[in-house]
């Protein structure tokens, strides 16, 4: 069956994937492969392993789409969580985790010209929000999310009590949410209360 899926929402595509529509998986891939690969590469620091993580992430999408609950999360959030989880699993298995500051490890690459403008915009927006966090909160978030460390490993490595690490991650994520919301004029209605979406 051939049809143009470009007009469908991510959520509609996931519903089609749940019914075994390969074209819908292809469309999701076209939308999210690049961001997925970028994330996996940052975590794994190895191109072949990053490809594996992306492949396993999309296969999780293929196998578990029928369990996706649109009332719980956006489809994009769910998909990127699956890719992130695969990348983190791999980095833990390969024990490729790093401790040096993240920024220093990002190498500039020559294909920046291919970078889609809005991806670059998003990246700058998020990185600028991260820079506004207190150092210890940013460190906890980056080592956990981009480094693949568990909270207990972080506590060991940083020589801090587990409770301190938990609270840094919790406070850091909450603050990051505020910072990102502030930068998004159309989302300023956010208030600390029950979520409506």
């Amino acid at each position, binding site marked *: 069956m051939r049809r143009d899926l470009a007009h469908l929402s991510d959520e509609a595509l996931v519903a089609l994937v749940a019914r075994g529509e*390969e074209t819908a*998986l*292809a469309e999701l*891939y076209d939308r999210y*492969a*690049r*961001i997925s*690969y*970028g*994330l996996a*590469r*940052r*975590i794994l620091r190895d*191109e072949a392993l990053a490809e594996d993580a*992306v*492949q396993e992430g*999309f*296969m999780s999408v*293929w*196998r578990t789409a029928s369990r996706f609950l649109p009332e*719980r999360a*956006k489809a*994009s*959030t769910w998909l*990127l*969580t699956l890719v*992130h989880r695969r990348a*983190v699993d791999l980095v833990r298995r390969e024990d490729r985790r790093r401790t040096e500051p993240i920024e220093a490890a990002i190498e500039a*690459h020559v*294909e*920046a010209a*291919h970078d889609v403008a809005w991806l670059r915009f*998003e*990246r700058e*927006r*998020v*990185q600028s*929000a*991260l820079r506004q966090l207190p150092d210890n909160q940013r460190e906890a*978030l980056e080592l956990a*999310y*981009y480094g*693949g*460390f*568990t*909270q*207990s490993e*972080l506590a060991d490595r940083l020589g801090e009590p587990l409770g301190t690490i*938990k*609270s840094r*991650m*919790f406070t*850091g*994520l*909450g603050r*990051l*949410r505020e910072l*990102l919301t502030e930068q998004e004029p159309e989302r300023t209605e956010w208030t600390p209360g*029950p*979520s409506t979406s």
Partner: protein
Amino acid sequence: MDPRTLHELTAAYVLNALDEREAGEYEEHLARCEQCREELAALGRVTEALAYGSADAPPPPSQLRGRILGQARDERSKMIPMRSRWTLAAAGLAAAAACAAIALGAWAATLHGKLQHERAAQGNDAAALSVLTDSQGKRYDLQGARGELVVTRTGEGALGIQGLGPAPAGKTYEAWVIEHGKATSAALFHGGEDVIAIRLAPPVPLGAYVAVTREDANGRAPAPSGPAVFGAQT
């Protein structure tokens, strides 16, 4: 772990920073805690932003797309479609199931188990299986459960349900055929088996709704007493 401690794990969970045991405990807690589900949804959007924060990378190699779609296609063709599985069950093809399990490895090992169950189910309800495997039958996906409703050209109906948990203590599942606002009791059954085949007693006319509710185990209810747990519209 006490609930307050589990509650605090939302941030670590959304960052995938829990080990397997902690994540399992948190997921159990999540099923019971509305507040955590809301918190998780909100923080999930922040971690999505973190994914974009790492986008400084070239596009993936072009062959990755084909590799993923190829694997998806492979797995789909090996995942025996539900109708064929009923067919296999009816025929009792243990050999086919065993071959499938060997060929497909772990992914199919669970399938092999299911086929064994289906073979067990066969003895209990051959009538249901004959409807489920009717190649002329109309098939409707169940809403709210995995499985399907099959209605033959003569209006005989059966439900094939996968992975339905057991009815709570003192309760039973009851199937209904509902047409023009009138519900007719169609079957009583207990969940808890991997695969269940249920023959529906009354005919299922086109346009009818087949619903399954939970009812008291002591005697048939005159009409559905609660919302449908799952069902299918014909």
